[in-house]
């Protein structure tokens, strides 16, 4: 297998300790769990998505574990502005604050709360199961561009996280790029549903949810590859990454780094385990492989 040389990593304006980033919404609500992920080897962490008002999330069940992935509809629970307190405990760490809103003004407002503490922002325009937010605005290139511009007023690196639930993900990627995004994160979860045949009802409280984990890896690789052909800003691959080989594959598709979420369920120490396999003193430079599958 290919190994990478351990070098300082700078991706999308964020200086990270390695190429592996904790994905938004996974153990991301408290400073203590975010620190834990950094200690266990994450190169940077993205927080739970923070919005304009506190939200308690959807009624349960909010998540089910499938054979090859997870399906969740958390409903964007978050402490809103009070998350400032958590962030204080993380000052100096590579923390990207995920934010969401229903329009550019809300994105601007929420970003403002964290402008002095975040290393960067990640715009969640892609959660597939919260009405009025996420993918409901992330399927419209004009709104995505406007939200990106609004957040960029704070002069911080801005990553825009895209939904795969669109006919053409590149049109959204290009909108983010035009809005001044420093990187694109692809992908958020894939809209999905399972039904309990015993209860004769959808298993998630919100009925619809988002599929993540291994099942969506081939979809995520495809999106990264498409975006690499269409856009010129850095891409962070996300979706089903669960081993070092997957990281290399995402990089070859065009990703500068990856985010990892669901794999935590099978292995809470996933970051240190992937690092062990991915890096070696005689490894090659990531530059050699990022996008190399485009030939």
């Amino acid at each position, binding site marked *: 297998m290919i190994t990478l040389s351990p070098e300082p990593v700078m991706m999308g304006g964020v200086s990270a300790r390695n190429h592996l980033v904790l994905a938004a919404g996974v153990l991301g609500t408290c400073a*203590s769990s975010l620190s834990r992920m950094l200690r266990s080897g994450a190169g940077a962490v993205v927080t739970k998505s923070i919005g304009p008002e506190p939200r308690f999330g959807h009624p349960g069940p909010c998540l089910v574990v499938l054979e090859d992935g*997870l399906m969740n509809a958390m409903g964007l629970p978050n402490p809103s502005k009070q998350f400032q307190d958590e962030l204080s405990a993380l000052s100096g760490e590579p923390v990207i604050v995920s934010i969401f809103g229903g329009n550019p003004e809300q994105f601007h407002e929420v970003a403002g709360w964290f402008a002095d503490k975040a290393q960067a922002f990640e715009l969640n325009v892609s959660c597939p199961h919260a009405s009025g937010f996420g993918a409901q605005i992330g399927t419209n290139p004009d709104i995505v561009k406007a939200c990106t511009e609004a957040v960029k007023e704070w002069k911080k690196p801005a990553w825009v996280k895209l939904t795969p639930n669109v006919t053409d993900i590149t049109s959204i990627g290009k909108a983010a790029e035009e809005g001044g995004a420093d990187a694109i994160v692809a992908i958020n979860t894939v809209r999905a549903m399972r039904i309990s045949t*015993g*209860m004769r009802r959808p298993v998630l409280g919100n009925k619809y949810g988002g599929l993540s984990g291994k099942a969506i890896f081939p979809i995520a690789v495809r999106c990264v590859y498409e975006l690499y052909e269409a856009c010129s800003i850095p891409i962070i691959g996300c979706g089903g990454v669960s081993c070092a080989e997957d990281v290399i594959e995402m990089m070859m598709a065009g990703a500068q780094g990856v985010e990892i979420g669901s794999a935590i369920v099978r292995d*809470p120490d996933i970051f240190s385990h992937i690092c062990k396999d991915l890096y070696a003193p005689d490894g090659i430079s990531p530059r050699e492989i990022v996008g190399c599958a485009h030939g």
Partner: protein
Amino acid sequence: MAEGLPVTVTITKVVKESPGVTTVFFDREFESCIGQFVMVWVEGTDEIPMALSYKNAITIQRVGDATTRLVAMKPGEKLGIRGPFGNGFRLHGKILAISGGAGTAPLLRVGLECPDVTFLMGARTADELIFHKMLTEKCDVRVATDDGSAGFHGYVAGLLDEISLDEYDTIVVCGPDPMMRSVLSVLQKRSSLEKSQFSMHRYMKCGVGVCGSCCMDPDGLCVCRDGPIFSGLSLQNSELGKYHRNAAGLKEK
């Protein structure tokens, strides 16, 4: 980690344990370690964490929407069960069990299944004591009530004064946060933290260590996966008894 979609179970029997507490039995036993919990789906309302009081039952204290629907359910109705989840107690030797209120439920199997158990049980009043008779047949039960209507008049931690902790190999504790913090303080003073295990409660959504809603300060451990059972030592400097986070992640006292 148990996996998959909720398993559908049918309720077979409903037993009222006290005015506010009800046990619901279902048609399936879940292989589980004592201390593990399940996520109980009350269709149309919510999914909530519950200890397995028996392998085929949960014992519910009515506090809000989901628990209110649960205690009103009838045989023949259905529930969805995910799990069991979490780590469970490590039980050996002579055991001291200390419970407060509905916290007796997660410890019931300790009293019923282990050979040498002393059970300290607290409740607000005599009629809120649960499983008292059943446990008395199996182990040495001592009672405390806040109003003195049964046993020792005061908190359950007070019962510890009459206990020689050195005699015990394992100490298991479950109850409301303030009760557990005060027990923890006593055990700490009497140098018995090492053999103690506390069954923690935090707001849970996923049950499998991914959503982060049940994380505790300062270590960022997940109650659902790293717990719910924690050694007293590891809780000394924790948020226990000080605050917890609600469904939105906001700190509450």
